[in-house]
């Protein structure tokens, strides 16, 4: 799948932003006034910034408001609804914390749950697709949600939780990578099932429909950079998990170590998310002789 920068930016930043909001919603850290404002500002900048960048991915954004209407069937619509609900409820909670020096606990808990559910709905947009076997697995939502929770923990200064969270994230990430290798082959879709010609013999593409490229090939048969996948996986896990855990282990409560931990983690998540798209194979590639 084409790793569109706007979608990678969106899912990484909003994942982190909603993770922060979830921690802030359960009162961690329990701060009020100006300090609370700073934390909420960062969380909102990430979550809203991510959502805005996602709209750059749209071909026709003027109809965006209609995207809140189909929550009964569409994970993308559910994501939109949950995101707006989470941002509004947490906005209310933030007003209490910043201006009235109070924590409205019930509102905060509802906002925290909605924030995590938003990240879950994001992950389900990908996990629901039977056409992309690499994504079509329960490890996809677990990876997205655990990344969001532990990244949010780091950003809100819950360093111990973040450290253990990152270890868990690392294990889930490694499992997700290795279990998804070969899932396309195991899914049973081949050029023979795609064309229905398997009972005659072995099928091979003889001629593509057009000499040039097309939307389908650009969007869903992306193959650039796969050869560096192993190196990028290693790089991603080191940046996303190993360095932040090491920094926290050396006492990254504040200062330069904390900054390194955050930057390293975020860059690592970007690498992981880039791979998430670039490595994913869509079954339509079978029609173009581009799979296996």
């Amino acid at each position, binding site marked *: 799948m084409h790793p569109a920068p706007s979608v990678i930016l969106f899912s990484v930043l909003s994942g982190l932003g909603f993770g922060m909001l979830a921690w802030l919603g359960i009162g961690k850290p329990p701060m009020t006034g100006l300090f609370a404002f700073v934390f909420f500002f960062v969380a909102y900048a990430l979550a809203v910034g991510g959502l805005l960048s996602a709209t750059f991915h749209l071909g026709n954004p003027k109809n965006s408001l209609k*995207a809140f209407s189909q929550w009964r069937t569409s994970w993308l619509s559910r994501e939109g609804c949950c995101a707006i609900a989470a941002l509004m409820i947490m906005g209310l909670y933030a007003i209490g914390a910043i201006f009235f020096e109070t924590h409205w606990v019930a509102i905060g808990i509802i906002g925290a749950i909605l924030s995590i559910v938003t990240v879950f709905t994001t992950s389900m947009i990908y996990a629901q697709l039977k056409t992309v076997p690499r994504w079509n697995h329960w490890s996809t939502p677990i990876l997205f949600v655990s990344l969001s929770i532990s990244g949010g923990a780091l950003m809100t200064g819950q360093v111990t939780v973040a450290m253990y969270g990152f270890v868990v994230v690392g294990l889930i990430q490694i499992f997700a990578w290795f279990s998804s290798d070969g899932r396309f082959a195991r899914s049973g879709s081949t050029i023979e099932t795609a064309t229905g010609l398997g009972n005659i013999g072995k099928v091979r593409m003889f001629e593509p429909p057009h000499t040039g490229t097309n939307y389908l090939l650009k969007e869903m048969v992306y193959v650039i950079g796969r050869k560096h996948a192993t190196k990028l996986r290693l790089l991603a896990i080191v940046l996303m998990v190993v360095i932040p855990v090491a920094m926290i282990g050396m006492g990254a409560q504040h200062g330069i170590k904390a900054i390194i931990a955050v930057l390293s983690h975020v860059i690592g998540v970007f690498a992981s998310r880039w791979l998430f798209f670039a490595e994913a194979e869509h079954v339509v590639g079978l029609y173009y002789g581009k799979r296996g």
Partner: protein
Amino acid sequence: MTALPPKSDVKLGLVIDLDTCVGCHACVVSCKGWNTENYGAPLSDQDAYGENPSGTFLNRVHSYEVQPEQGSAQTIHFPKSCLHCEDAPCVTVCPTGASYKRAEDGIVLVNEDACIGCGLCAWACPYGARELDQAAGVMKKCTLCVDRIYNENLPEEDREPACVRTCPAGARHFGDLGDADSDVSKLVEERGGMDLMPELGTKPVNKYLPPRPKDQGNEIDILAPLLAPVATETSGFLGWLDRTLEKI
């Protein structure tokens, strides 16, 4: 609403005969022509006369080589467009309700006035039947020529999809696959019409007729022994020619 409608009795669709398709791409051209001039945004091209031309097509013809275990390989031309699936995954993923399946005849359509061009429906489709038009930014797909098949301003013989109307080989058939007595249903029954990627559970309405078995070319007729050469020694003019040429 992007929920799928209750199962309709009428299931309009295409039956494509892989035995007769000659791969001329006439259906591709007529589809592009009709759908550029009619329903919704035109099907745009990018860099059409330049170095890297590309464009939006609702129907594309692939060609495959199939190698049986024994005998020679065969070429099969393979037109592919929207299969108007009964369990269309492209419909339920749509966040705006732009993508929908008609209750009355099962045609899957895009309401371009509601489409945000997110492309998720194209991701959900296993068949590559949906393309985001790069000029209009909205999703384009086969409409089964909904603006022809019910169009009383057209002569009756033209009230079928442009691709079917134009096919010079008669490889494309249009009809109601929900009616067991329709011509297309009988054709599917007779020729063992099949689904593409049935393992994905999309239940396509369009069916493909597999190529008929080919003559292998090495089959020996039961009368062959009677046709064995009778003359073991050459004689006459040919015999003389044979002997003379041997000597040279």
